[in-house]
């Protein structure tokens, strides 16, 4: 039997990858990075980096980067809320999660954006939970009915209660880490259990070019010490906050990611790190950061290749769109992005549901994108040899009347070889018209209603109580006496 070939695409040849990596080493050593966080600054200094205290600047020698790389695990294993299902983040395994973090949600009926509330966060977590091609949830919406100071812990609080999936999240304040970590540990039973079976990835964004703010650096340190994987979100904008050439942006991207990785390793050797990002092809006309631009996707695919070359798990924001509603643009940008990400073997692909430059979530889009993800997942499974011989024997009794529908061979393989969409329209015209001539977005809205009528994949009540206790304590510390009512 011939081994199935996993479809892959590589934008760069090895010489090009090496050149980018080498230039990024040079930048780190010669020009350094700005590290606002005092502890990280000292840790780096003690690990052998030259520093310039007046500018918070750290010059990282190549040996330190290489040592840190050798300490970083190539593969991470995440577990769902119940600690049962395992997800490998590494190699060419791909996992989709909804894009984050939106401040608005798209209202399907009025086609306008509005601020999100607790009930939107709950719906979002529940719909994500039901999406069979989306492995991880993300705390992808910011709630406007609680004070912003606790919006980081609050979205995790909701996500953990309403979805079983591992969660991609992150802090908005230095103090946010503790309650968030406490909640995750409460789900697992202890901090040690959490470190053994990670449930969440924490995103940390350097500020381009080459700056690590106090908050994001603290998140790296805290995550490293508690075994939480840090996902590094470098986000150069070509020609604005990074070089205008795609290759130049890749150099900066690599330097930013590597510096983040070094911070994690000096804080805790062996801590899990994901080589990720959200760079964009900056629109020189509009001053916007199109995530659906083909150049954005090219940068993403290429840095993922660089991450793989460095033997690291990878992440990218792909499969999202800059459209403001669920139209052709939303579908085409998301489709191209998801497929390219899958072919590039990006391990964590953040995108589904997201519109308008990463600022708006649409549940209907999430449901449509789930089908795109299904197609991408099918694509990378490739074409398998199922039989030996492939087909010759199927023709031995051939007559002019022959068909394949009733053959056992068909019955045996059709579900393995083909996927069956639920939202994508394959009706005949009359059938489609008979159902009310609905658009994909309308069909998705119908599907959401169905999902929300199903029971919640609820959390153990004693854990829920513990989560509420932690959340309330965090809220009280920040001047709030009660939380919005939660209606499942």
């Amino acid at each position: 039997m011939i081994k199935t070939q996993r479809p892959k695409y590589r934008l760069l040849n090895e010489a090009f990858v090496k050149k980018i990596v080498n230039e990024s080493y040079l930048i780190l050593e010669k020009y350094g990075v700005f590290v606002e966080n005092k502890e990280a600054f000292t840790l780096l200094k003690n690990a052998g980096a030259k520093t310039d205290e007046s500018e918070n600047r750290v010059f990282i020698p190549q040996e330190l980067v290489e040592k840190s790389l050798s300490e970083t695990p190539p593969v991470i294993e995440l577990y769902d809320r119940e600690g049962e299902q395992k997800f490998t983040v590494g190699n060419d395994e791909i996992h989709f999660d909804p894009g984050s973090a939106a401040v608005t949600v798209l209202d399907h009926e009025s086609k306008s954006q509005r601020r999100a509330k607790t009930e939107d966060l709950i719906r979002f977590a529940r719909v994500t939970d039901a999406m069979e091609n989306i492995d991880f949830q993300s705390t992808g919406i910011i709630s406007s009915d609680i004070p912003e100071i606790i919006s980081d812990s609050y979205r995790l609080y909701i996500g953990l209660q309403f979805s079983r999936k591992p969660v991609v999240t992150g802090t908005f304040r230095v103090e946010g880490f503790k309650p968030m970590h406490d909640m995750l540990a409460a789900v697992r039973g202890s901090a040690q259990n959490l470190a053994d079976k990670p449930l969440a990835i924490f995103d940390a964004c350097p500020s381009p070019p080459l700056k690590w703010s106090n908050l994001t650096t603290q998140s790296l340190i805290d995550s490293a010490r508690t075994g939480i994987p840090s996902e590094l979100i470098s986000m150069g904008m070509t020609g604005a906050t990074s070089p205008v050439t795609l290759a130049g942006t890749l150099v900066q991207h690599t330097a930013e990611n590597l510096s983040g990785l070094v911070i994690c390793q000096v804080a805790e050797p062996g801590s899990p790190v994901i080589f990720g990002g959200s760079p964009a092809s900056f629109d020189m006309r509009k001053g916007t950061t199109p995530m659906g631009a083909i150049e954005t996707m090219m940068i993403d695919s290429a840095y993922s290749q660089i991450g793989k070359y460095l033997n690291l798990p990878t992440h990218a924001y792909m499969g999202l769109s800059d459209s403001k509603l669920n139209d052709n643009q939303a579908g085409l940008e998301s489709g191209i992005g998801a497929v390219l990400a899958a072919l590039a073997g990006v391990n964590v692909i953040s995108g589904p549901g997201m519109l308008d430059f990463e600022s708006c979530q649409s549940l209907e889009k999430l449901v449509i994108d789930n089908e795109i993800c299904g197609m991408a997942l099918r694509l990378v499974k490739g074409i398998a040899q199922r039989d030996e011989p492939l087909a010759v024997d199927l023709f031995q009794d051939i007559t002019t009347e022959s068909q394949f529908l009733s053959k056992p061979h068909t019955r045996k393989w059709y579900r393995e070889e083909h996927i069956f969409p639920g939202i994508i329209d394959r009706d005949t015209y009359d059938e489609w018209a008979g159902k009310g001539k609905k658009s994909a977005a309308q069909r998705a809205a119908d599907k959401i209603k169905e999902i929300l009528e199903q029971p919640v994949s609820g959390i153990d009540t004693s854990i829920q109580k513990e989560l509420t206790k932690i959340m309330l304590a965090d809220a009280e510390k920040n001047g709030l006496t009660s939380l919005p009512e939660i209606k499942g």
Partner: protein
Amino acid sequence: MIDKKILSDMNRAVVEGNKDDAQKLAIQAIDENWDLNEVIENGFVPGIQKAGDLWEKGDYFLPELITSAETMKAAMSLLQPELKKKNLTAKTLGKAVIGTIEGDIHDIGKNLVASILSANGFDVIDLGADVKITSFIETALEEKADFICVSTLLTTTMLKQKNLIELLKSKNLYGKFKVLVGGSPVNSKWAQDIGADGYAENAMAAAKIAKSLIRT
């Protein structure tokens, strides 16, 4: 009267974004004791206006526009101290305090707006990034500013734009300054909701709105 050709050279230097030429011309103007207000108004300002027109038409993109604005700034940085020496002030449309709000160290958008505002004749005080709400207000009071311009890139820090307006209200300062908000997660609806005076989706729009507000 200054030679028309010289004025058009100044104009062209700004349109083409040629800093060296612009500064040479500014030095020539100072050395030869020309009327500096005329130099600015009839030499350099029409250049930035032309660059703005080219942007509106779609011929100029951000790299051209920002280079023109920086060229304008480079010329002004030589001319303004001279005006001061002569106890003259450059005509200004108004004074703006600008910065990226606390918690956010992204300042590319804010820098664009600051450059374009200043190129369009506003006196701009740039507080940089990660600026505390209170320093926006304190600086605006000290400088007797007309505008407070607040930028944010992060969805998490945009909420602080609202806090700034709330703080203005609680200090009875609401309405004393025109507050302009901007940044990628922000839109006009948000500006309206929080009670800001204006929102601009890009730097050119910011200059336009500032000009229209100063007239009211």
